[in-house]
C-alpha cells in the first residue's frame, strides 16, 4: 500500500471515529441536562456504554430511573469502554463538583489518583457492578454481584427439581468471561461429584445460532439428555429451536428442562408460557441500594455489598416480575 493511500485511509478512519464519539458525547450531554435547582444531590456516574449488553442497558436505565430529578437528584453520566476515557470523565465530574461519584470501571487498575482527588474534594465514591483495586478507605461502598452465587442459585434450583437423573447439555458463554466462569463453576462441581451427568459441555460464545448447532449435533448422535443449561437467554433460545425442530418436548411438563440466564423480558415470557423452566439473573439493579445509603435509609456494615441474585421458576413467575426485573423492551 502506498503512503498516500494509507494517509487517506487514516483520514477516513479518524473522521468516522470523530463522528462516533461526537454522537456518544451528545447522547451523554442529553442525559446530564437536568435542572440544577438548589437542594438537589449531584451524582456523577461513570459507566460502560449501554450498547455493551442487555445487562448494561438495564443497568444504565436503572441508574437513570433512581437518580431522577423527581427523586431529588441531578444526574451526570459518562459512558466508555476504555479505562482512560472513564478516568478523564471522573476527573471532569470532580472538577464540576458533584456530591457523589458512582463508578463501574472498565479496568480494575489505575484509579488510585482519581479517587484520592475525589476524597480531597469531599466527594463520596460508590463502586457498582465491578470492583476496583484500591484501598477500601477511598470509597463508601461497593455494590457488586457475586457471579458464582448466580450459578449456585441456578444449580440449587435444578437439584431441587429432584429429577431421576440429570443428563445435562451445558452450553457455555465466551470462555473466560466473568459471566461464563460464574455460571459454569457450580455446574462443574456437580459434574465432578457425579450427581449430574455431562452429556456435552461446549461454548457457543454467546451465539444463539451456535447453541442450536451444538444441541442439534447431540440430538443427531442419539445421546439421551433431559436438561439444557445455557449460560444466557439467547443460547437457550437457540437450544430450544433445535428441540422444536427435532420434535422434543421441553419446559413445564416437557421432557427437557430448559435453563437460561439474564432474564430478558422475552425470555421471562417464554417461562411464563411454560416453554422454559428457569431463568437466572445477575442483577443489574444497584441504584436503589446506593440511593438508600446516600439518603441514610441504609447503613453500611461491610463496604462490599453483594447484590442479591434472582432466579425465576416458570411455575412461580408473575407478570409483575417480568415488568420489574425483565431486561429490554
Amino acid at each position, binding site marked *: 500500500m502506498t503512503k498516500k493511500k494509507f494517509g487517506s485511509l487514516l483520514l477516513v478512519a479518524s473522521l468516522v471515529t470523530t463522528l462516533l464519539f461526537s454522537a456518544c458525547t451528545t447522547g451523554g450531554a442529553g442525559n446530564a441536562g437536568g435542572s440544577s435547582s438548589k437542594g438537589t444531590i449531584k451524582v456523577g456516574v461513570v459507566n460502560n456504554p449501554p450498547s455493551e449488553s442487555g445487562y448494561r442497558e438495564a443497568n444504565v436505565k436503572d441508574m437513570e430511573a433512581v437518580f431522577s430529578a423527581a427523586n431529588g437528584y441531578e444526574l451526570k453520566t459518562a459512558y466508555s469502554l476504555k479505562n482512560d476515557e472513564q478516568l478523564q470523565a471522573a476527573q471532569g465530574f470532580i472538577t464540576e463538583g458533584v456530591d457523589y461519584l458512582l463508578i463501574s470501571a472498565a479496568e480494575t487498575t489505575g484509579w488510585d489518583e482519581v479517587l484520592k482527588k475525589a476524597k480531597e474534594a469531599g466527594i463520596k465514591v460508590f463502586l457498582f457492578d465491578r470492583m476496583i483495586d484500591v484501598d477500601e478507605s477511598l470509597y463508601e461502598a461497593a455494590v457488586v454481584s457475586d457471579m458464582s452465587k448466580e450459578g449456585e442459585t441456578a444449580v440449587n434450583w435444578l437439584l431441587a427439581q429432584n429429577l431421576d437423573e440429570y443428563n445435562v447439555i451445558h452450553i457455555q458463554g465466551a470462555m473466560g468471561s466473568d459471566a461464563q466462569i460464574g455460571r459454569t463453576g457450580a455446574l462443574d462441581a456437580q459434574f465432578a461429584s457425579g450427581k449430574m451427568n455431562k452429556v456435552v*459441555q*461446549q461454548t457457543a460464545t454467546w*451465539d444463539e445460532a451456535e447453541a442450536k448447532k451444538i444441541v442439534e449435533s447431540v440430538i443427531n448422535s442419539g445421546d439421551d439428555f433431559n436438561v439444557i443449561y445455557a449460560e444466557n437467554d*439467547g443460547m437457550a*433460545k*437457540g437450544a430450544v429451536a433445535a428441540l422444536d425442530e427435532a420434535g422434543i*418436548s421441553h419446559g413445564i411438563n416437557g421432557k427437557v428442562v430448559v435453563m437460561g440466564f439474564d432474564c430478558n423480558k*422475552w425470555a421471562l415470557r417464554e417461562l411464563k408460557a411454560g416453554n422454559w423452566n428457569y431463568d437466572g439473573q445477575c442483577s443489574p439493579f444497584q441504584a436503589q441500594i446506593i440511593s438508600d445509603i446516600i439518603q441514610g435509609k441504609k447503613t453500611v456494615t461491610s463496604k462490599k455489598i453483594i447484590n442479591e441474585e434472582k432466579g425465576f421458576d416458570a411455575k412461580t413467575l408473575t407478570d409483575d416480575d417480568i415488568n420489574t426485573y425483565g431486561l429490554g423492551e
Partner: protein
Amino acid sequence: MKDNLKRIFKGGLGQLTIPLIAIALLVIFNLIRDPSFFSIELTLNNNGNTVLSGNLISIINGASELAVLAMGMTLVTAACGGQDISVGAAAAIAGSAFVKILKSGPSINIGTVIMAFLFACVVAMLFGSFNGTLVSVFKIQPMIATLILYTCGRSIAYWINGGATPTVSSPIITAIGGFIPGVPIPTPVLIVIGVALVFVLVFHFTSLGLFTQSVGINGSAARLNGINSTFIKLLSFIILGLCVAVAGTIGVSRLGLINHETLLLDIEMDAILAVAIGGNNLGGGKFKISGSIIGAYVIQMLTITLYAMKVPSTDVKAYKAIVIIILVVIGSPVIKSKFQKFMNKIKSNRQRVSVKGAE
C-alpha cells in the same frame, strides 16, 4: 460430453479438486467413526411438520448463511483482489433493519415480511456501496476499507433497535428460518439454492463474470477495453450487500431474535476461508462460485464433525485451524507445482518403462 470427460481426466477437476477431496475425506472419516453419521430421518417437529433431520441436514442447513456470503465474497475477491471483513457486522445491521420493520407494524404478515426484507436489502446495499466506494473510487485496500464497518457495524446495529436482543415471533419468520409447513427440507437450504440459481442466471444473462475477471486480473487492460472497473468493483460490493441481507434475514429468522453482538459473529473469516478452500485466488482474478459454496460446506462439515466428536469447547477452534491450514497449504501454488512435477516424473518414468518393455 466425451470432450468434457476427457478434459476432466486430463486436467483433474481443476480448482475444485481440493474442496472435493476435503469433503470426501471428511465423509470417509465420519463414516468410519460412526457408520450412521449421515443417516437421515423423518421426524415430527413441535410445530407439527414432518421434517428431515440428521447430521447431513444439520450441515447443509447450518452452512446456509455462510454459503450465501461466500458467493458474494467470491465476487468481491475476484474484482477487487481483497476481501470484505465487515460482512458479519453488516449482516447484523441488515438483520436489525429487518427486525425494526417487523416490530414497527401492528402485526406480522407476508406483506410486512417482504417489506422488511426489502428494507434490509436496501440498507445492506447502502453499506455495501459505502465499502465499495472506498475501494473502487478511493482505491483503499478492501480489507482496510471494510475494517471501518467491521469496527463500528455492530454498534450501528445496536442503535437501530436499542434493546440488546429484540425478538420477533410469527409463523412466517419460523417458516423462513425453519421449515415451511409441508416441506421437509429446511427453508434456508432452499434459499441457498435460490441464491445460487440467481447467480447462475446473472452470469448467463450478463457479462458480469467476464468483466469481473478481467478487472481482477488486469485492471489496466480492462479499462482500455472500455470496461468501467470502478463500476464493476462497486457492483461486486453491492451484490455482496444483497447476500449480506439474505444471510442476515436467515440468521434472524432461525430463532426470531436479533443479537447484534453475536449474529453471524466471525463469519467473515469463514466466508473468506470458504473462498480460499474453493480454490479461488484471494488476490483476485479467475473465480468459481461453486468452489466457494463447496468450501462453505467443508467448513460446516468440519464444525459439525468436531461437535459430534464432543471435542472440548476450548479446542474446537484449534482443530478447525489445523485442518484449514492443511487444506490451504495443499491448495497453495507451491505444493501444486511440486505435485505437478511429481506426477510428470511418474508419467515419464512409466513411459520409459513401457518403452523398455517394448524393446
